[in-house]
Structures are given as C-alpha cells and as structure tokens.
C-alpha cells in the first residue's frame, strides 16, 4: 500500500505521536545520567530529581525579598502581559482588517501604511519603545502588539477582501448598507479566521514577550529564565521552558475548540 494512502486511526496516532517525544526524553535521561556518573555536580544536564528540587523552592517557598511564590508570580505577570497584548492586537486586527478589507477608499488610504509597518522588524523598535514608554509594563505590551498586530491585520484584511464578490452584491440587492454588510456579512465570516490568526500569532507573541522580559523586567517567565542563566541553572530553565510550551499548547487547543464550537459552519460538515 502506498504511504499516501495509509490512514492512521486514533489510538495509532496517539501511539505514534508520543513515540518521538518519549525517545527524546529517554535520550536526555541517558545523557544526563552519563554526565552525572562522571560528575555528580553537573549543572548542564540536570536530572529530574534536581529539577524537582529547584522548582519546589520556586513553587512553594515565598521569596525572601518580595514574599511572593516566584513561579506563580512569574506566570501571572507573563500571562497578563501576553493576554493584554494579544487582546489589543486581536481587537485592532478585527476592526482595522474589516474596515480595510471591505472599504476600498480606506484600503487605498491606509493599506500602504499597514504594509510599511508590517515589514519593520519589531525588535528593532524595542529601544524606541523603552525610550518612549519607559521600562514598565506598557513597553512590553506595546512590543507584543506591534509585533503581531500588523500580520493579523493583513491576514483579516486579505480574508475579508477575498469574500466572494457575489455575496457582497447579493447583500446589496437585499438592501444592505456598507455598515450592515460589515457587521452581518463580513464580521461573522472574519471571526473564524481571526481565531486562526490568533493561534498563529501565539508563537511570535511569546517570542516578543520573552524578549521584552529578558531585557528589562523584574518578574516574568522570560525574566526568570534569563536571570538564572547567569548561574547555569538548567534545573530551572528546562522546567520553565516546558511550562511555557504547555501554556502555549493549552491556548492553541482552547482556541481551536472555541472556534469549532462557536462557528460550526466554518469547520466543514462536522456540525
């Protein structure tokens, strides 16, 4: 049987999918054990026990200076920045994308500006943001917004302007105004695409968050990783990275499920 025709059932997919992950974990454990056999004080590839010990301190013991549980304070701070950044970017992508996608005069006016902003590498703007907005939360959130919003705007804009012309004409023959077409025809059809755009923007959003936290911060997941890097604390860095990955996966899955629940018509015949 040709490989293109081999369909894998659900249990088979879970088994096959977990195989490479399991192999990587085993490889890591093997290498770590090897290094620890040679040097029990090795910091580069910590054993799970070492990670658990290091993390226990961050998870359950209040910090001596701030009195906070460090891990949870980091998570909360990072998620808050990410949430606000994603929220602002999503909302502006929806509004700007809709208006630009549907109204040719607005697109002619602001289209080149959006394209221009989108090609600027956001990290290059980071110094400007820190100078203009200070080192506080605003600059970090602004970096996330500037980093992901232009791509999302262009995505929604392209999607809206690619709606079949027949639909727009049909709506007009049913008496709809530009505003009514926007809120009843374009907006609902842009929503599933918006969810998709947010999913794709999650990756870059994390990158910009960690970058901003690494450079100037006093709390946050990215801040912690870059702080303990000075002490070669791989026993903290690796669990933190795993935690970030887990958060990202949960967000991704949650967005997929929400989109399928809220817009069944956009997900094939599965409703």
């Amino acid at each position, binding site marked *: 049987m040709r490989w293109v025709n081999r369909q894998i059932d659900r249990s088979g997919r879970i088994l096959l999918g977990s195989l490479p992950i399991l192999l990587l974990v085993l490889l890591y454990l093997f290498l770590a054990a090897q290094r620890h056999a040679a040097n029990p004080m090795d910091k580069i590839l910590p054993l799970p026990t070492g990670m658990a010990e290091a993390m226990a301190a961050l998870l359950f013991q209040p910090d001596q200076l701030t009195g906070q549980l460090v891990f949870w304070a980091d998570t909360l701070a990072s998620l808050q920045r990410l949430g606000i950044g994603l929220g602002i970017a999503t909302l502006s992508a929806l509004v700007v994308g809709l208006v630009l996608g549907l109204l040719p005069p607005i697109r002619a006016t602001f289209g080149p500006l959006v394209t221009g902003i989108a090609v600027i590498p956001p990290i290059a703007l980071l110094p400007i943001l820190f100078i203009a907005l200070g080192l506080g939360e605003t600059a970090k959130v602004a970096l996330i917004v500037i980093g992901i919003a232009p791509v999302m705007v262009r995505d929604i804009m392209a999607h809206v302007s690619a709606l*079949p012309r*027949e*639909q727009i*004409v*049909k*709506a*007009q*023959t*049913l*008496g*709809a*105004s530009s*505003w*009514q077409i926007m*809120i*009843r*025809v374009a907006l*609902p*059809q842009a929503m599933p695409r918006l969810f998709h755009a947010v999913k794709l923007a999650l990756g870059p959003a994390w990158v910009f968050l960690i970058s901003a936290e690494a450079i100037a911060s006093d709390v946050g997941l990215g801040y912690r990783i870059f702080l303990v890097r000075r002490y070669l604390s791989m026993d903290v860095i690796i669990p933190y990275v795993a935690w970030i990955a887990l958060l990202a996966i949960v967000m991704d899955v949650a967005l997929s499920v929400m989109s399928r629940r809220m*817009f*069944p*018509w*956009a997900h*094939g*015949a599965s*409703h």
Partner: protein
Amino acid sequence: MSARPETLLSLRDVWVEYGDKIVLEKVDLDIEAGSFVSIIGPSGAGKSSLLRIVLGQEVPTRGTILLDGTPLTPECGPDRGVVFQRYSVFPHLSVLRNTVFGLECEKAPLTARLFGKARRDAEAEAAEMLQAVGLGDSLHLFPAQMSGGMQQRLAIAQALIKRPRILLLDEPFGALDPGIRADMHALITKLWRDYALTIIMVTHDIREAFTLGTRVLALDKRRHDPHAPHRFGATAVYDLPLRRNDEPAGETAVAVEIPLSIEETIGHG
C-alpha cells in the same frame, strides 16, 4: 397578461468597454413587465456584462438604462434581485436567517437585527417564502449542509422576499445535475407565475433558454475584425418572442417550434 404590457426596463444605446476592448455595442432593449427573458450567446459575448450593468454592479461606458422610466442608480439595490451560479447565499447563516436578512436590513438600519415581535413576523414571512421554494423542512440547516439545488432554492427565496421589480439569474442552474435542473425549471416557472415576476436569465443551455423564456435574446458580434477581434462588441443578434403554453405548472412547453438552423447558429458557444 394584459393586452398592452408596460415596459419595465429599457436600455438605450448601451456600450460597455474595458479599455479599448469593446464588450457590448449599441444595445437597445425594452423588457416588458412579466416577461421571462433568456439571454444566450457564446462565451465572451457579454452576457454576464449585460446582466451586471442591469444589476448595477457595473456602469455602462455609454448609454442609459431606465427602470420604470427613471434612470438606474449605478449601484445594486433592492429593486433588482439576483441569483448567481454560486456564492449567493451566506455560509454563516442558517436557511431561515439567510432569508430574514433582507427584511432585517430594511427594518433595522443600525443593528441589522430584529427582536421580539418584529423578528417573529419576519421569520414567519421568511418561512412562508421558504415553503414556496420547497425548503419548508430545512429552516435550520446551514448552506454547507445542503445540496447545490437546495442552495439555489435558498438564493431564490432570499431574493424574492424583497419583492424585486426584476429578478436577474446568472446561469443559476449551470452547476446542477440534470434531474435537479428539471425540478428547478418547474420551480422557477411556478414562482414566475405565482409572483408575476419579471426575470432576466443568462444561460449556456439553449434548451433551458427556450423552455423557460417568453423571449430569447442571443448576443453575439455582428461584425468581426480578425486582426483586432476586441474592437467590435456584441449586441442582440436574435430577439425571439416566444409564447408559452399556459398549461398547469410542471409541464413547460414552448409554443414556437425552434427552427433548427437558429439553434445551430447560436449553439456554437
């Protein structure tokens, strides 16, 4: 039908040009209220262009179009309904919501949504219209769950609920199976009679054009320059009035025997 039917739509010396390419030249047409006009012709003869200028989606380069004696606004409006071959229903709305949409736009300019009694009334009206096109049992399906024929039924109901002065059909049954197409022919005939519609239909199917129409227009180029084929536009080269038997709906026969030569002449597209 009354003895002297009124002219509903008239085109006077209409030209459509894209750059130096002439698509339609000197089209003069009068369409009477209550007629069913089929437009046929080879590909690229400007059938769809003609439909688009009547619809208001495009503006003719020259000439005037009068609807009920007043010039058309160069924009689509609720006085002209349309059914395209595809994409003329909204995929994100159920059958009922698709049909109510036209009423909601009219009655709620700001929200385009109706609530309470107004909504129930609109839904009742839409349900009645859907019953008439044979979708009475499918009110809560989404377009993706329906066959092509059902989607076209929905597109027709959507358009008819606005009571348009003219219904424009752009190859409405072109993508359907032959069996379904016959059903749709019966349906459109019935609706045309029941609602006293005026219909302009563009089609590739000559049999369909003669079966349904009370008048068949064949568009083609009168003149042809082999060195610059784009410099001559198409116009109505045949204008055949037909008389349909007023038999009970379902059996649709044409009173005029189609001369074979004409069918062959126009059939090359």
